[in-house]
């Protein structure tokens, strides 16, 4: 009798847990992440602050092709490819064997597998690196495979193994093809706006890479980069703060916060954007996740619709970055995030205070100020990387001193009518009558 209780995971559990926590869109992004990493390695691109530098790397050498239908989901890239050895020992393992280093998007070693299991019941990955023959890994019938009990494995058989064979592939790069699309994914894809949504997400998520390093096509059409709509004008300048010493200098962050360009002052695009190694993980967040309504920071309200805040995290140690495994949202307990969150709010608070003052009243001055805000023009993110630390600059909102008090009281309509008659102004407004009443009292004093 063994003197321990088995805590070994079942295959079924693993696959269910992995796929339950991720949405279709994020699974596609996971596949693209792998392709981006492959392209970055193949071309010695860097996913670091150079992404924010103007000029650097306008060679869009990487190409990623995504095809999505309810029959199959394919993604093809011209990245560095997967070496046969890596395929045997690393790439298909659930979870990393070693911790990751280098400024990559891959962190946990789970994205590719999760996407494969999430989207379909069969998949095929073919790849080839330079100076090697290609291979093909394929699994037909994930459902049968996951039911196969590791305890009943035959001698010499790896119950977690995925069949691998040589493949006469000519080009360097990787193809992933998922078929027997799962019924729930097919349901999502039946809604024809789903692919449009994926296209928008891809355009935002990889906006920095799409500007410089690579192109992505979805169903044959290029995805345009969706830039984060931060703006500036002569009077309104964004705040910038660089924080270099996180985790003993292993993680760097740059915070930029300001006013959205005049065409994008909408609630949908307002809020915080957080990027890890150039990839957007939080997109226009207006929830407590990024501090809205937490401690002294205000809750998001409509008058903050012109607010844009961006945090760029960069590290050669991706496991130190604040992303979650799904790369949608931040891990609030990550040291890197804890280290910047107060700075984020400190940098942003003068902006929310400014915007609130602006929409507080409707007087002439507030209107002038609003016009200034609405005339902010778009600026490229590159201009902030090299920028020195600066605080938000805005024209002062002057509270005009006034000695006026508003007088309000209730009167019956019969009284108003009677007063109008006395005044000999049958169509006098209620406020005219109020004014006349006050004047009458004042005359008594003269």
């Amino acid at each position, binding site marked *: 009798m063994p003197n321990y209780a088995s805590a070994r995971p079942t295959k079924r559990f693993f696959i269910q847990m992995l796929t339950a926590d991720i949405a279709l869109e994020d699974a596609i992004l996971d596949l693209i992440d792998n392709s981006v990493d492959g392209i970055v390695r193949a071309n010695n691109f860097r996913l670091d602050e150079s992404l924010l530098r103007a000029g650097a790397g306008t060679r869009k050498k990487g190409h990623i092709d995504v095809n999505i239908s309810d029959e199959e989901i394919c993604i093809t890239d011209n990245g560095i490819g997967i070496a046969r050895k890596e395929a045997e020992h690393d790439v298909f393992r659930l979870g990393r064997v070693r911790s990751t280093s280098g400024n990559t998007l891959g962190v946990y070693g789970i994205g590719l597998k999760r996407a494969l299991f999430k989207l379909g019941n069969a998949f095929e990955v073919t790849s080839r690196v330079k100076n090697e023959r290609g291979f093909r890994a394929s699994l037909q019938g994930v459902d049968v495979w996951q039911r196969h009990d590791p305890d009943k494995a035959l001698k010499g058989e790896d119950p977690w193994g995925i069949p691998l064979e040589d493949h006469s592939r000519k080009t360097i790069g990787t193809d992933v093809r998922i078929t027997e699309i799962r019924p729930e994914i097919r349901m999502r894809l039946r809604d024809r706006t789903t692919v449009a949504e994926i296209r928008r997400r891809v355009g935002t998520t990889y906006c920095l890479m799409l500007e410089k390093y690579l192109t992505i096509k979805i169903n044959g059409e290029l995805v345009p980069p969706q830039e984060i709509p931060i703006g500036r004008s002569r009077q309104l300048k964004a*705040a910038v*703060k660089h924080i270099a010493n996180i985790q003993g200098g292993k993680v760097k962050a740059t915070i930029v916060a300001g006013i959205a360009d005049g065409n994008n002052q909408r609630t949908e695009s307002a809020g915080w954007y957080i990027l890890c190694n150039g990839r957007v993980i939080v997109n226009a967040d207006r929830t407590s996740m990024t501090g809205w309504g*937490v*401690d*002294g*920071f205000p809750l998001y309200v409509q008058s903050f619709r012109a607010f844009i805040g961006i945090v760029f995290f960069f590290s050669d140690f991706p496991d130190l970055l604040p992303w979650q495994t799904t790369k949608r949202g931040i891990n609030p307990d990550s*040291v890197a995030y*804890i*280290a*910047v*969150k*107060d*700075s984020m*709010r*400190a*940098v942003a*608070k*003068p902006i929310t*205070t400014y915007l609130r003052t602006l929409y507080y009243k409707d007087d002439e001055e507030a209107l002038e100020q609003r016009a200034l805000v609405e005339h902010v023009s778009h600026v490229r993110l590159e201009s902030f990387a090299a920028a020195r*630390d600066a*605080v*938000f600059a805005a024209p*002062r909102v*002057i*509270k005009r*001193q006034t000695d006026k008090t508003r007088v309000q009281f209730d009167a019956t309509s019969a009284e108003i009518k009677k007063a109008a008659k006395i005044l000999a102004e049958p169509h006098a407004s209620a406020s005219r009558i109020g004014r006349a009443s006050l004047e009458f009292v004042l005359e008594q004093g003269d």
Partner: protein
Amino acid sequence: MSAESFRKVSYDLRPAKQIERRILLDSFQFLAKIGLPVRDYTYVGFGSIYFYDFAMFYRYLGMKRMISLEMDRAIEKRVNYNRPFKNIEIRMQSAEQFIPSIDRDERYLIWFDYDYMVDRSNLSDVQYACNALAVGSLFLVTVDAYPPASLRMKPGALRKHVTTQLLQFLPDKYPLSNLSASNMEVFSRDVILASIDKGLESRPNVEFVPLWSIGYEDTRPMYTFGGVLADRELAQTLRGSCKDFYYRLKRNESVLKIVVPRLTRKERATLDHFLPGQGLRLVKNFGINSDELENYRTFHRYFPSYSELF
């Protein structure tokens, strides 16, 4: 910063506040002796149009870099006109606007002297400032220790206000039953400390060593809380040496109350003759009660003298 309070009372005639400034000045000089060169720090305060703290810190400490924050645009001209020394930089900014420009490579002496009660906005100033300040910096905050009439008059209004507005600053199991208009000092201290803790969350090697917890009243009760951002070594040094001014003044209470006995020049001169030490009991009784004597003994070094000038 004090947009309005300067209109209500001339700063010249606030003896308790002046005693507080002198106590602080005294302790800055003490801190200089144990290795915190306060005169080389950047002083940031709300100078209003009087600049008392600025003038004192410049005259007696020799502070070189000073920044006065002023939010009230209506008095901008007067602020500039009254600036007593050239090394005082006036910024038409709120504390909130100033904080993001705090430089971690510099040491500051910051005194946010608000003229209203603790609220979400000044507590987040406290949080963000302490998050940003370098080790060795001194941070002080003054708030009203008296709720506005709207919260005083209606029973339960103060507690309701606190639980709706300041919930996120209350430590777990905070005994709100003790909350009343008369113990706002302790409450202010607790929420200020909670905000400082929040600000230092990401800096495990930095702690805030409280040095000042002072209550005083000229026109209405005010409360000042302050201390030093310290690493382990500095914290030990401070704990070892600051008993001299902090714990003695605190006399087993968490708040040092400045109470100013009203004495004539002649009475003061007589009492001074027997000080320092316990000699006041030898003074021939000329009508000063023992509480007043004790208060005078505690604060006599810091007591301002006023006279009319022509």
